Every structure is written in C-alpha cells, then in structure tokens.
C-alpha cells in the first residue's frame, strides 16, 4: 500500500517536472534567459564592476616644474591609474576642465614642491577629485600614497615621513596589483543564481495561478509538496548549467581560477540553488500575479547584492545590516564559494554556512507549503 502510494507520488512529481521542462523549452524568452542572463551578467559585471580604476582622465598643473616634480608625474603615469589628458599652468583652466567633466581628477604640484617635501608640514601635492563619482575619492587616496611610498626611506622623498602612516592605511584599501574580476566572479555565481532562480520560481507557481491552471491542479490528487518539488526540480539543473557557464566564461575571459575541488564547488552550488529556489517558492506564495512576483523577487535581490559581501565587505557594515545579511543565502554562499575557488578550501570547512543554507531552505519550504495550503482557501 505504502509502496504503491509512493510510486503514485513519484509519478505525479515526474509528470509535473516533465510538464515544466516542456513548457520551458517552448517559452523562448525564458529559455534564452537561462543562458543569456549569466552570459550578460558576467560580461557586464566582470568588466564594469572594476574597483581598480584605470586611465582616469587627469589634468596636471605643475607649478614647480623641476626634475623632481616631473619625476613625480612620471611615477603617477606608471601606476596606469591616471591618464594625463591635460597639463596646464592656470588654476582657472584646471577648474574648468574639472567642472566640464573632461577630467575626473586634478593633480596640483605647488611651486615649492621640493621644499615642502623636505621639511614643510603642509601637503606636498594637492589632488582634486570629482566628488560626483564616489569611488574615485578612494582611488585618489591610493594614488597619493603610491609614489611617495615607493620612495619612502630611500632618498629624496624621505621628508614625507609624517604622511606615511596615513598613506599606508589608504594603500591597504586599494591594492593596485589585485584584479577585481578575481573577487567578483565567484560571488557572481551566487548573484546570478539568486537573480534567475528566485525570478524563475517565483514566476512559476504564480503563472499557474494567473492562467487558471492552479484551480484544476488543486482538484486533482496532486499534493502541494509534489507540485512544488516537481516544479523546482528542472530549475536545479538549470542552476547547475548556469554555474557552469559562469565558471567557463570566468576562466576564459577573466582568468579566474578554481583553486579548490570542482566537486566541492558544485555541491555547494546545489545547496545554494535549493535555498534560493525555496526563497522563490516563498515569494510565489505571497504574490497573486507574475508582476507582483517579479517585484517581490527584486525586493529580495537588492539586499542580496548590497549586503551579502558581494559589493561591500561584510565586516564594514553596521550590525543591523549584518543581521539582515545573515538571513540572506547569498551571504553564506559567498563565504563558501570564495573559499573554494580562491583559497582552495574544502567544503566540510564551510559546515557552518552549509548548515545555515540548509536551515534557510527548510524554513522556506515549510512556510511555502503551509502558506500554499492556506491559499486553496
């Protein structure tokens, strides 16, 4: 009896999954999104999100015009962060260039540059930054540090000693050797999976509701759990396909390595996919229409991107934000995936994060099934 009941349940589950795959393969837009979204995102994020700013349009006003000041400018150029587009002698012109946005940064070397380097406590060089582009201020801090630090304690710039401690600080924030893509791509797996998994699943059940199919489904022996699991199964595979796409493109375009074991990586991705699908399912029980589902999905997406440590370091966030971030599966996945991909960590080392993800999935599934049952009413 129990065996035949199990078999009937599996048959229903399989029927739902088959139907879902069939519908997906006929919905060209969605099908295209499965491959298109990760491709587009990784190329977009990989190239666009670049903390290591390069070739910043810069205007230089060298009032000193000595060999030392020229050497300083050469040093600046060598960092490749700045691209000296203009040189000027007039502060009016410099201001104009900045105002018009033709230069994002200005370097002003005072006429008593060398004297200031030797003994003066006044700033050696003034760097003006376009404040409308917030990231640049940090960059500028780094730039100011680089040339002086390289000379620190070994000759002509030793007079800059007093400035050195502050500048060392800046330098730790900004490491010109480090490529952002290496940090971004692993986390991007999580971001893209969150984006597509939550979007797809939140729409999946709502679509049945919106098109009136749900009313028929409820009248059949199909249980809520069978319906949900059956609908989610195909997306698990889609998630794994997307993970593969990101890994391949990441390695190919951005030379992002996988230091740890691939098995660990996919196992972690599987747990994370399940957790995000759970979230999508929960969203789908809240929404009445696909439009609402998409809005709600985006509502969960934004905190995931901002708070999960993808954009900003987790430690730097206020405690309240950290608590919120703890609730997001992406936060934990980022820890796991960076460990595996970049530091070569083993999956079991991330048992705490895995536990949190599993807990998240369990809660979401329970809430979704309970809420869905209520919805028949």
């Amino acid at each position, binding site marked *: 009896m129990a065996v035949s009941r199990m078999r*009937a349940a599996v*048959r*229903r589950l*399989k*029927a739902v999954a*088959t*139907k879902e795959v*069939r*519908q997906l393969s*006929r*919905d060209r837009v969605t099908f295209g999104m499965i491959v298109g979204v990760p491709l587009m995102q990784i190329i977009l994020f990989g190239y666009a999100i670049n903390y290591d700013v390069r070739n910043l349009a810069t205007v230089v006003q060298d009032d000193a015009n000595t060999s030392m000041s020229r050497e300083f400018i050469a040093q600046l150029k060598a960092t490749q962060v700045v691209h000296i587009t203009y040189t000027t002698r007039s502060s009016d012109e410099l201001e104009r260039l900045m105002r018009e946005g033709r230069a994002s940064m200005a370097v002003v070397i005072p006429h008593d540059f060398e004297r200031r380097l030797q003994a003066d406590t006044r700033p050696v060089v003034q760097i003006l930054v376009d404040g409308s582009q917030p990231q640049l201020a940090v960059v500028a801090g780094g730039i100011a540090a680089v040339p002086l630090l390289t000379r620190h304690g070994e000759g002509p710039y030793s007079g800059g000693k007093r400035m050195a401690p502050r500048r060392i600080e800046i330098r730790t924030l900004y490491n010109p050797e480090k490529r952002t893509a290496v940090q971004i791509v692993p986390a991007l797996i999580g971001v893209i999976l969150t984006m597509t998994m939550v979007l797809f699943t939140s729409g999946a059940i709502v679509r049945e509701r919106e*098109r*009136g*199919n749900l*009313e*028929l*489904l*409820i*009248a*059949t*022996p*199909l249980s809520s759990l069978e319906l949900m699991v059956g609908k989610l199964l195909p997306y698990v595979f889609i998630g794994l396909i997307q993970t593969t796409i990101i890994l391949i493109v990441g390695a190919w375009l951005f030379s992002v390595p996988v230091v740890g074991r691939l098995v660990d990586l996919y196992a972690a991705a599987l747990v994370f996919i399940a957790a995000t699908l759970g979230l999508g399912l929960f969203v789908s029980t809240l929404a009445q229409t696909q439009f609402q589902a998409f809005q709600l999905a985006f509502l969960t997406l934004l905190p995931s991107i901002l708070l999960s440590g993808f954009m900003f370091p987790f430690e730097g966030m206020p405690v309240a934000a950290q608590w919120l971030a703890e609730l997001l599966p992406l936060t934990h996945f980022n820890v796991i995936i960076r460990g595996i991909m970049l530091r070569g960590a083993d999956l079991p080392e991330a048992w705490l994060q895995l536990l949190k993800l599993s807990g998240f999935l369990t809660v979401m599934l329970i809430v979704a099934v309970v809420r869905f049952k209520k919805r*028949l*009413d």
Partner: protein
Amino acid sequence: MSEPGQTAISARQLTRKFGAKVAVDHIDLDIPSGRIYGFLGPNGSGKSTTLRMLCGMLLPSDGHAEVFGLSVVKDAEAIRRRLGYMPQKFSLWEDLTTDENLRFMADLYGLEGNVEARIAEQRATYNLEDLRTQRAGTMSGGQKQRLALAAATLHSPELLLLDEPTSAVDPQSRRDFWERLFQLAEGGATILVSTHYMDEAERCHGLAIIAEGRMVAEGTPRALMAAVDANIYEIEGADGSEAPRLIRELPWVHGVTQLGIRLRVLANRSVKDAEVQLRTLLKQHHIEAKVELTSASLEDVFVVATRRENNGR
C-alpha cells in the same frame, strides 16, 4: 460507481463568507447520483463558490457537505480521486498539446492499465483525433471545451463538477456537449453543472435556482414551472415603450419582459382579475392589444424566484 438513486451530494446549511460578504448563504442540497443537476443563477450568485466547496478547494465557513458520504473538509483527498472538475475558465495548459495535456492528467490521477488506450478512447469520444499535436492555446472555444471535458472525465469520475462549461462555445458545440453529458449520466456519473442559460437549465434532471448566495427554488424544471408563484400573461401588439411602462406601474406586477412584438407580464397570483385589469389599462391608453394567460417558462420561474429573494430582504 455509486448506485443510482443514492445521494451523491448532500449539504446542510453550507455557508461561505469572504470577509463581510456572504457568497453562499446556508444552502441545503440533496443531489441523487446518476443525474444531471443544475445550478441556475446570475454571475456572482455563489454557484462557483459552492462547486469549489464541494471539491474541497474552499473550506465552508459554516455548515457541512458530504460527497459520497465523505466530508468535503476531512476527506477532500479521497473525494478528489472520484471527482472530475472543469473550472469556468479553460484550465489546461495552453502551451501543451492535446496528447500532452491528457497524458499529464492521466499521471496526476494515477491511471492504471493501458493509459495510451484510455487516452485514445477519450480522443475518439470527444472528437480530438485531428488535434492530437495541436497546442491547446491555438484551439477554438468548442475544441478547448471538448479537450477540457475529455481531461475531466479521463479517470472515469463518479462525480463531475462543471462550472459554466458552455460559456465560451457556439450553439452547436453546446448541443453536442449536452449530448455527451447525458451519455455520461447514463453511464452512472453524477453531474453537477452551473449555468446561466435557461435552455441548459431546462435540460437538467434537477435544478436549484441560486441568487445572492441563497437557494431560492429547487425541483425538476417541469415542477418548478408548474408551481411558479405567478400568473403569466402574454400581450400581443403592444410593442411600444409606453405599454411596458404603464404595466410596470401596477403594484401587483412582478416584471415585464419584451419578446419581439409580445410582452410577458408576471403577475401576482392573488390578483384574480389581472387579465381584466390589464385589458382596461391598455384600452384607457388606446393601445390595441391581445391579452392572454399562458404557462410559465423557466425564465419566468427564475424572475419570480429571484424577485421574491430581493423583496424578502
């Protein structure tokens, strides 16, 4: 299959509220098996809500209902296996073909034995052979309806709940559809069908007229027409706008319906000289017309029943 003559559905004081709105208001039902039983009522009268409660999709706010002696609340799962439901809106998958839709439903109901043969049988019965690989979304209203009925009857349910099944189909498809319903009933199935078409209601074995969530009349169509609480007068030759206006002003007139050149007047039964009064009124206004007592139609029954309901509040 349950025995003919047994009670398939019984409900006592079945009630459903949505917030402050009472959608179904203390309805009693006793529907014998093997019959076609109709719910006649306007849109929003609570027909769909009642059907949904009977298939366990909605919980009653009050009262209880049993299907084959099983509680619709506690034994909903057991009932679902013996029940076919066809929602008002086409609810199969528009991006799936006929065969795919039927196959899916067969899996959901756990059809045993030769599933392909059963599906082929349904295709033949419901004239779907040419539509095997056509996606449901591209079908006409009549084709969709045949597919929906084929899907709902695939597992040979003992009870078939049909929610306004013919609202999107042409007259010929409607006739064919009813032929099939009679065949199913002959095969032993109990059919509960909601409609707002009088001609369909008239074909049912039993009928409940529902208005504003309440059952306002029940019986066989013939008995309902015979027992109508009104006298019906037909007036021929008074097709202007004046006559209906004048007649409506009479305190004992329930309603006036214009049918071409004829007017149908529903008059209170207690007024014995209604015919004379009508003639006098028309003569006073120089309208030449013939007034005649006639037998009630189902529509008359409906108008009288729903009118009484409105006055009763």
